[in-house]
């Protein structure tokens, strides 16, 4: 079997595995549903997820350690992930192959030549990682030496820096001293400027362009909901995700750009590929030419996936190890060796020091700029309701990679990707939308936190969510509080009995309770009592709508008989009103004015019981803008949003 066939099998395998993981991320016990399938494995293997969260939080969460395996193999072999494993790369390769079938060799060689723009992905990587590193820089600037281990660590770092500086000093003493002075001034200025200021902040935005979260998100939110139907039946109710147009547009743009340049995304945009390009600088084995035999026929360039120009000076950070050049070469010149390509090799990524520093500074400056909007502080948006178990907003934004796994697994389809309501940083992060989906956030469900690959939504236990057992003292997790809109609520504003919200409140005792009120109904004129026979009141007045008034919610009162409680209407006949029980016998007289009342149960929310699950909002019959709505007030994840004592 040729190496290219092996590579193709690997790509197809991982592509199908990826699709399979997307499909089985469905809550249920069927063999094709989530029952232990490692659906996050590809995300965990993606070291950009691990590195990004490590920079942003100082921790590497559980399964993300898998990324270390990818890193180690990449250090030894180069970008194997891109050519052999990445499902997004496989898709691009397939589309590029389709688009270029039958093209002349010269055209394909031209399409696959190296372009300066391929350096852009390194700039994107540096930008995104710098944006995630603000907190880390702050911590390093304010490190206090309180343990021998820390002191040893600092001494080690200093030694490395001095050794590096000494090497540089051999080359140019002047530049060396200038560099040291500049660095010292830089650190001093940074530590002074950033103390107590807003100049440092961290936000994890790698997921915007990181291919694995991007592909997961796109398939989860824009492709599966489209094909989900009778043939491929994944969800009980078809899924909707408002605001995913831009998400889909980004995906399809990436796909169609393969028509212009094969693997366009991988070559120009992919920050993960850029990371691999940097890591593979010292790869022990690498693609390249042998010393003799090359006829400069260019066949290797024709099928080159990375645009690394194996025919001439090979740019090894661009090589995705597709091995097409090995198969294409008719002179057996191309191989995978321990030595560099005989025709020459450039093993450093194409990003100048100037570009590196500029993008680093831009990334580090972008997040503080975004934070000036105040959305992680005073200007927090109460419409941003995060899934139960979500961290406080600042920490949340340091972990969420926008992969959409929580939205995919949510059994009720209430988790949606945010547009700009959570700020520019919060784009495509999960928010709860109770107007959509099959029900609110189910009280007995903890799926999203247990699927979240980065613990932006913590993996809570059911006891913690409900505030039971060892979590009794903390109380339940609240995602917000429901507020009754009395101007829209049927019993409050429109004299119609309802209280669907109270019935559906899943908390025990219920967070929604009611108070009773009798209100006179509107009629075309006065009703006067003519006489009483048994349970029947004979009346004179406008025609009464019997189908409405005999429903059990309507009552009769007689003016001036205040001490007699309203009596329920059992039936309306041609000549009068039949009461369920007649308290007026002997207590009312002919000519008394009769008032018809509707009994209303008006809903109130007890904020100490409400958990913000949104079932009430989902069920409210005022379907457009609901008459009871949840906002993030009193959510447990942010102490500052506390409403009660």
């Amino acid at each position, binding site marked *: 079997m040729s190496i290219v066939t092996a590579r193709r099998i690997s790509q197809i395998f991982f592509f199908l595995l990826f699709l399979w993981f997307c499909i089985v991320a469905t809550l249920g016990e069927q063999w094709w549903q989530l029952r232990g399938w490692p659906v996050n494995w590809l995300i965990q293997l993606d070291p950009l997820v691990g590195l990004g969260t490590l920079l942003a939080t100082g921790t590497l969460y559980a399964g993300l350690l898998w990324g*270390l395996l990818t890193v180690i193999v990449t250090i030894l072999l180069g970008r194997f992930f891109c050519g052999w494993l990445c499902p997004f790369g496989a898709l691009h390769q397939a589309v590029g192959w389709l688009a270029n079938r039958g093209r002349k060799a010269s055209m394909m060689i031209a399409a696959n030549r190296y372009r300066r723009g391929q350096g852009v992905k390194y700039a994107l990587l540096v930008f995104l990682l710098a944006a995630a590193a603000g907190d880390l820089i702050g911590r390093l600037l304010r490190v206090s030496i309180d343990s021998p281990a820390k002191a040893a660590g600092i001494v080690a770092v200093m030694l490395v820096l001095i050794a590096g500086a000494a090497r540089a000093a051999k080359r140019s003493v002047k530049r060396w001293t200038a560099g040291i002075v500049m660095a010292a001034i830089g650190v001093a200025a940074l530590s002074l400027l950033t103390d107590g200021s807003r100049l440092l902040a961290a936000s994890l935005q790698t997921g915007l362009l990181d291919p694995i979260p991007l592909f997961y998100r796109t398939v989860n939110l824009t492709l599966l909901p489209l094909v989900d139907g009778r043939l491929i039946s994944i969800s009980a109710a078809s899924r909707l995700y408002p605001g995913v147009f831009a998400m889909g547009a980004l995906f399809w743009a990436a796909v169609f750009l393969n028509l212009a340049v094969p693997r366009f995304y991988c070559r120009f945009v992919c920050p993960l590929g850029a990371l691999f390009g940097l890591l593979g600088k010292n790869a022990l084995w690498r693609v390249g030419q042998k010393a003799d035999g090359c006829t400069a026929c260019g066949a290797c360039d024709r099928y080159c996936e990375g645009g690394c120009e194996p025919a001439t000076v090979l740019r090894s950070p661009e090589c995705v190890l597709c091995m097409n050049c090995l198969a294409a070469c008719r002179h057996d010149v191309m191989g995978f060796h321990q030595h560099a390509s005989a025709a020459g090799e450039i093993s450093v990524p194409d990003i100048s020091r100037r570009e590196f520093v500029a993008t680093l500074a831009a990334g580090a400056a972008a997040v503080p700029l975004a934070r000036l909007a105040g959305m992680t502080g005073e200007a927090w948006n109460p419409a941003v309701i995060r899934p139960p178990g979500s961290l406080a907003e600042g920490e949340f934004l340091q972990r969420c990679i926008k992969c959409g796994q929580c939205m995919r697994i949510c059994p009720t389809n209430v988790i949606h990707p945010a547009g700009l309501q959570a700020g520019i940083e919060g784009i495509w992060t999960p928010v709860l939308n109770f107007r959509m989906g099959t029900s609110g956030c189910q009280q007995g469900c903890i799926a999203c936190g247990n699927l979240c690959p980065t613990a932006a939504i913590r993996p809570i236990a059911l006891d913690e969510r409900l505030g039971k057992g060892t979590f009794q003292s903390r109380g339940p997790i609240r995602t917000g509080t429901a507020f009754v809109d009395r101007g829209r609520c049927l019993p409050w504003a429109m004299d119609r009995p309802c209280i669907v919200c109270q019935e559906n409140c899943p908390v025990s005792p219920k967070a929604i309770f009611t108070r009773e009120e009798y209100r006179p109904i509107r009629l075309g004129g006065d009703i006067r009592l003519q006489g009483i026979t048994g349970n029947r009141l004979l009346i004179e007045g406008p025609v009464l709508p019997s189908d409405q008034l005999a429903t059990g919610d309507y009552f009769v009162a007689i003016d001036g008989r205040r001490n007699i409680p309203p009596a329920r209407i059992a039936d309306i006949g041609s000549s009068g009103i039949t009461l369920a029980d007649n308290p007026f016998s002997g207590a009312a007289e002919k000519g008394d004015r009769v008032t018809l009342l509707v009994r209303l149960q008006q809903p109130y929310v007890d904020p100490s019981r409400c958990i913000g699950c949104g079932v009430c909002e989902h069920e409210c019959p005022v379907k457009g803008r609901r008459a009871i709505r949840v906002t993030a007030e009193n959510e447990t994840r942010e102490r500052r949003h506390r409403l009660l004592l």
Partner: protein
Amino acid sequence: MTETPIDRREFLGRCTRAGFSVAAAGALGFGFYDSSGPDGLSGAGASVKIPDFSIPDMKGKLCIARGTVQGMDRAATVRAAFEALGGMKAFVKPGERVLLKVNAAFASPPTLGATSHPDLVAAVVRLCLDAGASRVTITDNPINDPASCFALTGIDTAARRVGAEVVVPREALFERFTVAGGRLIRDWPVLYAPLARSDRIIGLAPVKDHHRSGASMTLKNWYGLLGGRRNIFHQDIHTIIQELAMMIRPTVVVLDGTQSMLTNGPTGGSLSDLKPTGTLIVSTDPVAADAVGAELLGRTAADLPYIAKAERVGAGTADYRSLNPKEIQVS
């Protein structure tokens, strides 16, 4: 066809660098590995400690000074009142640093009586400095914009004239604090830096009507040391005042009833909200001081639930007559 010879030196160098890279990646990965994830309980740090500023020998001292109802001289009255309790020297020792917690809650002029009067502030500062205080600091975390409050109340000008320092609150001066045995003040931001830098604390408050708590006097005045979204505490105003009484054990408090705000409190806004009551109270017992003040508002200590609550936690005595107050007349 010949094999390309491998440059040994180059290859070994690459092996070394790759080896170091793998080791570094491994060290980072395992070094920062976190199997359980965050606990979601961020921010619950250790609480700072606020010392007891009271003087043991001076417990239960109370002086009620009465002056002419119209145009009482605050400076002369407060001087006489302190004199009656043994002089400021009994409270402030030479070299001590004194913090005056004034009421600068609103950006309104001193004539409207919503804030501590600058004449009184200046007089107390002078007394402290004359007693040998090394430094007098004035602070409050007001409701309106802090800088405007200190400027418009006249407190800033008065303080600078007599050589006191005004600390305008900013984020860096707050620390999280928990009242031992408290229910509300838990892990809550408190204007701590000026407290930490002081040996004595003197509370300075006007007598005011307060719609929620009944009255705002020396105990309610400590509310101005709280930071954060403190307005949620209004849901249980009497308990928060009780906990404030537990939080701050002052050296002495000065309750200014030269005039009292009887209506439209605590902001006032009109001269017709004020009534001249010609009384000034100096006390080491803030509960007793407030009990006296309640009467100036035409109420009794029993009308103000927080007074009994503060008494219950040992912050003072509601029955101020049992303290055998010194009552003086200042003409």
